[in-house]
């Protein structure tokens, strides 16, 4: 039986939509993962090797161990958000003559394949090689390895247990996150020391190998807690999120804009009520805080080209995240749009106002960066104008290239379903055009004129909005059959 389970899992993985991509995208994604992995590994090796130099006052092993508990807490939080509870995958087996205990053990065993369980390898192996191997015996190191392994698996099963129990109120995860930050702060101000506690547990394993019994006990407890609740509750409906009555909110303000307001309202609801778009929203703060990576450093403050890039990025979070999948967002009901909407000019204008409006708001929010220099304010203003006058039309024009159905019910992290070349191509003109406008002025030594030129181009775009919108609509009318055909294809 187990053979069949494994065979089916393998088939499922091989046939998942993730692999169903063009070669170019597979390579792109593969490259991305490789870079991430590589950076992680190099960082980990560097850190392990230089521990003694980074913290000259502390014992490197104790210092490292003081972070371990925090690491696991973070891991727990990340799993809580991203790791799937694998219960539903056994639904097709439930009616078959199989022992429940077999199914439950299979479900729990499957969770071990989660990639979160493999991250610690990158983090711990260099530490063990550089800091433990030269000074400790084989037995001590073996005990340490197993205690870490047991803890990783404990976190794995604990997170499943809690996620299953609390799947309806994810705010608990937020509370947990705040708790970690709070404990970190208390640690920093030397009020409570979680770090010391962490050191105590994991360093003691090295001196007293029997201490591995502690994580082993936690692991067994976590496994059996899961096992018990699953055996008694192996009903798919109990493992789904409980559906409560939904609260319906209307944005009254938009109603006064008639049909356009209504279309905007629809897009906003689309964003708030579907998992995929909703989970992109957590990136907004990253966009807005982007300035903090650059502005505090003198070198960047003199690189105006770089600042233009930052400005475009910060004033256009919705433009970029929402813009890259315009039309695709609506793929599940696109035939309804085509048969009911008679005026596509209006349809696209609704999308334009969403992008332009949010850019304006983002500009207001990022105004305090002016504290780093008034020229930053000027650059961001020029970028905002460009993100209002020109870039939305580029986005809308290219949106007619989107023809892949987007499954809105899955989260966006590491989700490459519905991704095509369009999304990669899109970012090129958005960033490149403003820089190209700026470049000749900069070459002739007048950077400020270049910035002004970007802003003026944006204003011109606003002035010629009717013409630009016509280009968008005409291209859409030409390509609508191809788009609709692609969207019907569920793959």
């Amino acid at each position, binding site marked *: 039986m187990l053979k069949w389970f494994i065979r089916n899992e393998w088939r499922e993985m091989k046939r998942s939509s993730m692999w169903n991509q063009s070669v170019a995208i597979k390579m792109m994604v593969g490259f991305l993962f490789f870079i991430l992995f590589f950076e992680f590994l190099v960082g980990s090796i560097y850190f392990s090797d230089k521990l003694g130099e980074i913290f000259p006052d502390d014992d490197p092993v104790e210092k490292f161990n003081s972070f371990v508990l925090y690491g696991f807490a973070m891991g727990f939080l990340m799993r809580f958000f991203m790791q799937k509870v694998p219960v539903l995958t056994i639904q097709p087996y439930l009616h078959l003559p199989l022992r429940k205990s077999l199914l439950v053990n299979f479900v729990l065993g499957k969770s071990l394949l989660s990639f979160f369980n493999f991250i610690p390898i990158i983090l711990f192996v260099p530490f063990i090689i550089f800091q433990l191997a030269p000074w400790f015996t084989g037995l001590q190191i073996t005990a340490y390895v197993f205690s870490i392994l047991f803890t990783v698996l404990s976190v794995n099963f604990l997170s499943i247990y809690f996620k299953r129990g609390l799947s309806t109120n994810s705010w608990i995860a937020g509370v947990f996150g705040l708790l970690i930050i709070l404990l970190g702060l208390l640690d920093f101000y030397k009020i409570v020391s979680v770090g010391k506690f962490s050191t105590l547990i994991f360093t003691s394993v090295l001196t007293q190998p029997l201490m591995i019994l502690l994580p082993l006990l936690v692991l067994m407890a976590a496994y059996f807690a899961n096992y018990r609740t699953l055996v008694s509750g192996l009903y798919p409906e109990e493992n789904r999120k409980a*559906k409560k009555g939904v609260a319906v909110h209307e944005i009254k303000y938009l109603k006064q804009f008639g049909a356009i307001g209504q279309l905007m309202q629809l897009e906003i609801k689309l964003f708030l009520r579907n998992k995929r778009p909703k989970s992109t929203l957590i990136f907004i703060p990253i966009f807005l805080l982007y300035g903090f990576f650059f502005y505090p450093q003198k070198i960047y403050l003199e690189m105006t080209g770089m600042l233009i890039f930052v400005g475009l990025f910060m004033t256009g979070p919705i433009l970029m995240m929402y813009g890259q999948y315009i039309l695709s967002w609506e793929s599940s009901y696109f035939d309804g749009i085509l048969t009911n909407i008679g*005026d596509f000019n209006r349809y696209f204008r609704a999308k334009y106002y969403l992008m332009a409006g949010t850019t304006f708001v983002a500009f207001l929010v990022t105004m305090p960066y002016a504290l780093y220099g008034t020229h930053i304010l000027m650059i961001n203003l020029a970028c905002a104008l460009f993100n209002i006058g020109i870039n939305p039309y580029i986005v809308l024009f290219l949106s007619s290239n989107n023809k892949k159905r987007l499954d809105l019910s899955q989260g966006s992290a590491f989700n490459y379903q519905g991704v095509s070349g369009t999304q990669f191509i899109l970012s090129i003109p958005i960033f490149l055009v403003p820089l190209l406008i700026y470049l000749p002025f900069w070459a002739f030594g007048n950077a400020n004129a270049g910035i002004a030129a970007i802003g003026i181009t944006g204003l011109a775009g606003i002035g010629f909005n009717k013409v630009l919108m016509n280009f968008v609509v005409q291209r859409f009318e030409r390509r609508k059959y191809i788009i609709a*055909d692609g969207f019907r294809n569920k793959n």
Partner: protein
Amino acid sequence: MIDTRNLTKQYGGQVVLDLPYLLIKKGESFGLVGNNGAGKTTYFRLILDLIRATSGEVMINNEIVAHGENWKKITGSFLDENFLIDFLTPEEYFEFMAGVHHISKGDLENFYAEFETFFNGEVLGKKKYIRDLSKGNQQKVGIAAALLSKPEILVLDEPFNGLDPTTQIRLIKLLNQLKEISGTTMLISSHDLNHITDVCNRIVVLHEGKIHKDIQKNDNTLKELEDYFAA
């Protein structure tokens, strides 16, 4: 009213629909039957300008559907779940459709009242998104939304599929009323020969993209169709 001329549709060189001439008159109730792959949905999609014809055209009120948008104002349609905005509640969806078709609040209220029996208390006021409704209730939402604007032309693809027996009977009654009172031109496809003969006065059998029969309904029609498909 709906004028089909030299219409063909090919996929990869294979002809899936070939209609040299088909005229559907105003007020006609037009039923389309045929086995899977006969071209029913393809034809409806061509009428609604959802796919591009390989050759020929469909005209609604002398307007080629691929070149104009006016026909959309008088046409109500529901083919499949690709028409439903499933993250809205039914009420929100109807409001959205009312907005698109410029229908007043009062008319929307009347619409709710008219469809109360059809919904059978399972659609409105449930505080559920459409995606959380059962397939049958989603189907009800789609059919009702197609009728919301009181269209002159109604296009439904297999509307009886997934409906419970009570609703099937109510839908037949509703469609017959529309035909007699409002004179709505109807295009309906179905796999159920009983239903289609209950509702439609003209029945066309499609087979491999071509018209095999074009019958004005009489007492023998059901028998004739059954014999055709049994053979």
